[in-house]
């Protein structure tokens, strides 16, 4: 399947089809990497807290170490499982965002400046609200 559209590289220029292959791989590995981190965090969490009782009936909001990446990272080094799960989720969220970044670079290389501009706007809309 990959060769039907994928191999149309003319004079070393980047084509849409090359971008499709790269984006496909990026998404696949992003999801895989995040699943592994979430799984690792999940094991630590269940070993440490598996015997306790869940409390989700009332909304209390998460503590800072589940919301701020720097604090998540520090808590992971203290051996906590839940912040590690959150880091895995951040990798998952970063995957489609990285995909936009790749598209942007690709459009620049293709000299498609209209789409390069569109991708930058989408990227800014997402990053400014993070």
């Amino acid at each position, binding site marked *: *399947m*990959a060769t*039907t*559209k*994928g191999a149309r590289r003319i004079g070393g220029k980047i084509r*849409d*089809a090359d*971008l*499709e*292959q790269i984006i*496909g*791989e990026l*998404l696949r590995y*992003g*999801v895989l990497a*995040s*699943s592994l981190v*979430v*799984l690792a*965090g*999940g094991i630590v*969490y*269940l070993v440490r807290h*598996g*015997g*306790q*009782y*869940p409390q*989700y*009936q*009332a*909304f*209390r*909001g*998460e*503590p800072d170490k*589940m*919301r701020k990446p720097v604090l998540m990272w520090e808590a992971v080094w203290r051996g906590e*499982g839940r912040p590690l*799960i*959150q880091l895995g*989720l951040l990798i*998952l*969220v970063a*995957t*489609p*965002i990285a*995909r*936009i970044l790749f*598209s942007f670079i690709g459009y620049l290389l293709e000299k498609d400046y*209209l*789409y390069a501009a*569109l*991708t930058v*706007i*989408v990227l800014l*809309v*997402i990053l400014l*609200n*993070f």
Partner: protein
Amino acid sequence: MTILVFSVILFFGALIAGLLGSLTGLGGGVVLIPLLTLVFKVDIHYAIGTSLISVIATSSGAAAAYVKEGITNIRLGMFLELATTAGAIGGAFLATYLPTSVIAILFGVILIVSALLSFARPADPVTAGTPSALSKKLRLNNSFPTPEGEKHYLVKNVVGGFIMMNIAGVISGLLGIGSGALKVIAMDNIMRIPFKVSTTTSNFMIGVTAAASVGIYLKRGYIDPGLSMPVMLGVLGGAFLGSRMLTKAKTKSLKMLFAAVILVLAAEMIYNGINHTI
């Protein structure tokens, strides 16, 4: 029920949701939120955050395969993401101000609409004629591989599709679902592109749309690791199994069954919303 038992049950619940969602094309998010809120009595804010995570996981996983096959119209997806991401952010802000009972009722209504829309026959795609100036300028007209060779198509009514996508984005950000049904309708019936292209392109956009609102949910503490972990792994596992099962022949009856389940869940959500018990 201890956390261990709770996590295991949630994992299998999400596995089934992911499997059914992938086989019927309705997505797993639509049953996850009722499952979490009605069965496990989880607060709807947590449920929405959890569902949003699962939506990103399944859409990215599936998009990886579709994009490489060259069916997805990436330019169309990129262009419409302008509309969906802006909408999603608006929706996420709205979610923090609306009372939970209103969110539950809205969710029920969208569930019913999605289930009904999944049975709508897509309009015939436009393959010949003169492309509109806007679709030419944006280079949206494209082709996709079929067993009979490359098939060309034109993208109609770009502005109408864009507005519909904006609405789909708001709903996605507000309710934590992919709103794939609305996206496919916008592309099939308004923009008149082939069904295969619209479903894969919709799926391609869902991850980015959800990523736009997830930052707001994370900051507000709606994303809980204890819920997200079993749900994300379960839904991904289910979607993977679904993509391996070639039950094309039974899809129709499965879809009927799934739609029936969704209608019951929707009624339950609306009922609980009206009684303020959610």
